[in-house]
């Protein structure tokens, strides 16, 4: 390049869509290589399934339309847990770490638009949630006789996608309130654990007092569990979409999006 020429017109940057796809490849690599992420997102739900089915597996659970095996009940709840672990938990920890270490700040000095980075991350969240769901369904069916959804598969996939995207938005919103990644993880688990319990992930909702499930109804966790349960429920007629639950999840996601857009900063907070 000659030292005296004025700047040549830049070559064309890639289109947004192409950038999202290529960025997703890198985000996926990072996700897979992170041991903590792999455990909490992929291994933990399977661990819970094995524990719960081994301890409670022989019972039945009353659901709308009839009774089902406990294992058939637990799989959708843990799929929901997997969605939340991948899209919320993992995202909050890794994005906070990226912010605090200066990685986000440096990326901001490049021409890549912020929406590309976010969309790519959301794509990975959905992907991880789907992989987790497949693993849970297979293990549940093979070892514990859980029923595999047939006709309602589209509802399962769409529910997972909506859940993942909504919890991604909530994750980005929460990042704006956290100063460091280290303190984030234990606090998050502490908050999520009771929510999982009262939302019927570990214990069938029919065994939980009404006032607790009413509290759980405020939050999106129970609605995700309910929406997935409906799609897994063999007595469900129709397509299996739980429109009301999906709407509530989407509203939570939209709220998260608004907060994130207003407050998100790439600059490290701890200095």
């Amino acid at each position, binding site marked *: *390049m*000659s*030292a*005296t*020429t*004025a*700047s*040549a017109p*830049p*070559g*064309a*940057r*890639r289109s947004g869509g192409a*950038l999202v796809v*290529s*960025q997703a490849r*890198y985000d996926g*690599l*990072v996700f897979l*290589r*992170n041991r903590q992420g792999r455990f909490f997102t992929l291994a933990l739900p399977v661990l819970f399934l094995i524990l719960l089915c081994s301890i409670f597996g022989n019972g039945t659970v009353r659901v709308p339309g009839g009774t089902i095996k406990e294992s058939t009940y637990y799989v959708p709840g843990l799929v929901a847990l997997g969605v939340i672990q991948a899209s919320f938990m993992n995202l909050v920890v890794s994005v906070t770490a*990226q912010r605090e*270490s*200066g*990685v986000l*700040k*440096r990326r*901001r*000095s*490049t*021409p*890549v*638009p912020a929406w590309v980075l976010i969309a790519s991350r959301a794509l990975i969240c959905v992907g991880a949630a789907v992989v987790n769901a497949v693993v849970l369904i297979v293990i549940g069916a093979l070892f514990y006789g859980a029923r595999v959804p047939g006709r309602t598969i589209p509802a399962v996939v769409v529910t997972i996608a909506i859940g993942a995207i909504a919890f991604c938005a909530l994750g980005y919103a929460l990042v704006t309130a956290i100063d460091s990644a280290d303190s984030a993880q234990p606090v998050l688990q502490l908050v999520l654990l009771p929510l999982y319990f009262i939302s019927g992930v570990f214990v069938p909702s029919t065994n939980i007092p009404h006032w607790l499930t009413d509290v759980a109804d405020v939050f999106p966790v129970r609605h995700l569990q309910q929406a997935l349960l409906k799609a897994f429920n063999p007595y469900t007629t129709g397509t299996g979409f739980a429109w009301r639950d999906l709407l509530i999840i989407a509203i939570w996601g939209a709220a998260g999006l608004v907060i994130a857009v207003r407050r998100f900063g790439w*600059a490290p907070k701890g200095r």
Partner: protein
Amino acid sequence: MPGDSSLTEGVEAVRSGREQFPSETVIWVGGLRMSYGDLEAVRGIDLEVRRGEVFAFLGPNGAGKTTTVEVLEGYLKRTGGEVSVLGVDPQHAGPDWRERVGVVLQESTAEPDLTVRECLSMYAGYYGSPRPVDKLIELVGLAEKAQARGGSLSGGQRRRLDVALALVGDPELVFLDEPTTGFDPSARRAAWEMIAGLQDLGKTIFLTTHYMEEAEYLADRIVVLAAGRIVSEGTPRNLGGRDSAPTEISFWLPPGIEPTNLPAGLAAAITNDHHRRIELRTQAPTQALGTLIDWARENHLELADIEVHRPTLEEI
């Protein structure tokens, strides 16, 4: 002098709303102020950087260097003053501007789970005309570590990756904020060579540092910043009036000789003669040395450990 008139033109241009600068002016700053609440970090700075030069911002930590640089890089919203970088106000810069500017932050970490090559390829994909990744890896001396994960790199290696990342888009202008902090001397020298090489490629470089020798070695022009204000400007040669400050010549007095035995002109210039180590100051070092050596030769004397010392920036 071109510098003066373009500065006045620049002020008028900005005030009248045109942001037209001759293409030689890459960065223009007028009256920059930056306050954090009550703390005024930058109190009115003017500067101009021309295309193709290495411009060094020198000063102790806390002087306001990084704050100023971050305003120029578009990270901080300034409190007052005018700024134009490549003809654009960095506060309103878009991706086209980002294509032309490379940034090495004062502190940054590698992406821990990506390899050096993957990280560079990822960044390369953000730009329209990126440089070949493998050549860049060699340029910064990370060829052996190309497959190493970011988390396994040493501090110096991470810094080199930072530089490669700033260059991958082939920018016209490169900001280097304290690029060699934490480097051992040989790594620092290697980094200097690389930075000098960037200038050969036609890039304009804005460097901040608190190392005098670094500014001295690399810069075409230096501006010294302290407590948010510019206290000195010039080239490495004449900064702070160095070229008019006296040179110091020192040597051991040969046995049997007293200071009074020295030629009269030199004897008068002696500033120190403790323990037979003579130090004298002169504005004409070549002449003084000539006189000294002629005298020593005539008297068959050896002057042990002669040193000739130009004042460094530290002493200014």
